[in-house]
């Protein structure tokens, strides 16, 4: 699903970002800041990438008309006129406001970061790396900027044409996938070698074309033993990097560690002489798992080491306890209490888990049924509007609602059915109402859990022209 930032988000960070010097060498001062952003930028030892990133931010905000410029890198901005003017001015004064604003960067980054990260038109640097870095920060919702943005009215003048927007939207979803590729790849550049930032732009420009074909692989990329984001659907590329420690590379697609994968990991580690002696590179080689990067292994090894550390001291201490052994009776009593308490805790936890599983299954079933009915309604609407004339065709369609149930809420069903028929032509209305009807019939279905019944379609055919607002769920025209 396309994620598109809008002016309100921009406006929220207007205050903060307005003053950010968006052109000119920034990182020198930024790297001094103790904030995480500073750390990341400090890594780009040369100013280039950060500058590019900032320029991109400025560029994207101030030049929305360029949105369609690059085919490869979509951009999804829209801005209000006053806003862009401000930025135009402010971008000319980079240095003064610098120190004060580096601070606000980290605060606003949570809200503002992602939008800016998609910007691309001016520089060859895909905003992938700083972008993902920002994404780390945006992992937690920063309430402060949000309250700012709530102060602004939602309606703004739109500078972009709708065509641009939709184009951007489409591109944005691809963008997400591409960013993943860039991230992984940009990471390798950063960590494997020293940040050769002078070559940075060249490398990236060269490789942008290479990455494009990869996008098609991304959606289908879901192997058994390991799952890389994105999930199955093509436009569902959540390549969000983990909010891991600042010391690790800023961006990497998240690896889903399964017990099997972990077992392979442990085997490799043991072969290499234990968690202390094993190196990420060695483990990576031994594991021979496709799609696994050194980052994944590195962070996993780190976790593994910390997990191993704890059990060991306790083993050591138990030796001592052997010699100090006395007062077993007292220990025994509290021991029993503790055991019982633990048992109880276990019971509660088991119950909770049980309930959660049941709940989850229900949720899945509900949504599945909803989807099915939605599909049915869409088909029904598409296949013609002359429902009243041909009840026969309707009865052929199976529905998951029992006839008794339908009779119960026939009135309501009729109202909404009439809407469905009447509005079959209009796009949004149709689907919305069919959703409402389907929800209604689902509700009925859920109550009775009845078998499929073809007669259920009939009451809908007898739709009258009753008042629409009968149901709460009707669309409110505002």
């Amino acid at each position, binding site marked *: *699903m396309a994620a*598109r930032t*809008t*002016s309100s988000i921009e406006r929220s960070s207007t205050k903060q970002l307005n003053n950010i010097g968006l052109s000119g060498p920034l990182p020198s001062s930024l790297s001094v800041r103790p904030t995480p952003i500073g750390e990341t930028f400090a890594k780009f030892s040369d100013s280039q990438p950060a500058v590019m990133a900032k320029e991109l931010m400025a560029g994207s905000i101030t030049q929305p008309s360029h949105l369609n410029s690059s085919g490869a890198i979509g951009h*999804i901005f829209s801005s209000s006129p006053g806003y862009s003017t401000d930025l135009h001015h402010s971008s000319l004064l980079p240095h003064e406001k610098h120190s004060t604003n580096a601070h606000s960067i980290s605060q606003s980054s949570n809200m503002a970061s992602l939008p800016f990260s998609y910007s691309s038109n001016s520089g060859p640097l895909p905003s992938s790396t700083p972008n993902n870095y920002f994404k780390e920060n*945006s*992992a*937690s*919702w920063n*309430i402060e900027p949000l309250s700012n943005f*709530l102060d602004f009215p*939602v309606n*703004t003048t739109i500078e972009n044409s709708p065509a641009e*927007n939709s184009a951007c*939207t489409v591109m944005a979803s691809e963008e997400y996938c591409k960013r993943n590729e860039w991230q992984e790849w940009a990471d390798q550049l950063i960590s494997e070698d020293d940040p050769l930032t002078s070559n940075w732009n060249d490398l990236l420009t060269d490789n942008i074309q290479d990455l494009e074909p990869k996008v098609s692989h991304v959606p289908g990329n879901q192997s058994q033993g390991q799952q890389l*984001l994105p999930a199955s*659907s093509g436009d*569902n590329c*959540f390549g*969000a990097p983990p909010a*891991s420690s600042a010391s690790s590379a800023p961006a990497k697609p*998240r*690896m889903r*560690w*399964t*017990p099997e994968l*972990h077992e392979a990991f442990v085997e490799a580690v043991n072969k290499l002489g234990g968690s202390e002696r094993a190196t990420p590179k060695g483990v990576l080689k031994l594991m021979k798992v496709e799609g696994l990067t050194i980052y994944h292994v590195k962070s996993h090894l780190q976790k593994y080491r910390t*997990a*191993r550390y704890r*059990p060991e001291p*306790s083993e050591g201490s138990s030796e001592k306890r052997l010699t100090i052994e006395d007062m077993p009776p007292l220990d025994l009593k509290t021991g029993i*209490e*503790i*055991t019982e308490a*633990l*048992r*109880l*805790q*276990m019971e*509660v*936890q088991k*119950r909770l*888990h049980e*309930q*959660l*599983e049941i*709940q*989850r299954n*229900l949720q*899945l079933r509900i949504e599945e*049924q*909803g*989807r099915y009915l*939605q599909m049915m309604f869409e088909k029904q609407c598409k296949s013609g509007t002359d429902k009243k004339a041909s009840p026969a065709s309707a009865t052929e369609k199976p529905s998951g609602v029992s006839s008794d149930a339908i009779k119960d809420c026939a009135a309501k069903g009729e109202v909404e059915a009439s809407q469905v028929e009447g509005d079959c032509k209009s796009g949004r209305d149709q689907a919305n109402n069919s*959703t409402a009807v*389907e929800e209604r019939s689902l509700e009925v*279905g859920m109550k009775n859990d009845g078998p499929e019944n073809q007669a259920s379609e009939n009451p809908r055919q007898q739709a009258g022209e009753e008042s629409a607002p009968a149901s709460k769920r009707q*669309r*409110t025209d*505002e």
Partner: protein
Amino acid sequence: MKFGKRLKKQIMESLPEWRDKFLSYKELKKLVRLISEAPPLPDGEREYGKAEAEFVYLLNNEIDKFNNFFMEQEEDFVIRHEALEEKMKEVRERWGPNGSEASEANYREEIAKIRKDMVDFHGEMVLLVNYSSINYTGLAKILKKYDKRTGGLLRLPFIQKVLEQPFYATDQISKLVKKCEGMMDVVFPAAEEELAERAREARDAITVAGEGIFRNTVAALLTIQEIRAGSSTQSAFSLPPLNMPDSHLIQAFQLNSTIPTN
């Protein structure tokens, strides 16, 4: 605002590191209200499209947050699970009945340590599943609100997408949970009393048994029960009320919450 309040309560009861990882339900609700109250403009369609895109954008952010946190926790759990199993094996092989240095005293002691770790581990995993569930519920609710207040059609397609997200795919964790439960009879001495009796015995000792996680799970269970107790807008997409025996007992475990200040 009932769900919002419950969510807040649940968040307060949860482990400190988790607190900012939950759904920002209140903020999203505010946004929905803003969007629905904005006066229609001449270019209404576009405005609507923009507002919706913004909303979707924020939701996607939230989802990313969930995914990241979830997968990170999951990774930790996978590691801890294997470590616990290893430890169990070691203890058995060393001090167990057939072990190299068979010693009942030592064995019991070591097992006791593992027991506590394991119960806590089990608890944390269940809480993660609960985390996933409550965030899903929140998302579903906010989507429903959005559709209702703006006449949008966001809910159905979006929720389908949510269902595919890693954070919702709790199968793996559930498997680990079950495995843990399987190990319980090794780790716990045999007991034949009923839950009620044991509860009486253990009530005083509850403070000993890892208060944080225990309180959290109790709160989670009760929250689920409340959420499903029936809403004002019962629909086809609502879940039926919770069917849980001994719920009165569970309620008795609701400790006076002192918000841990870690």
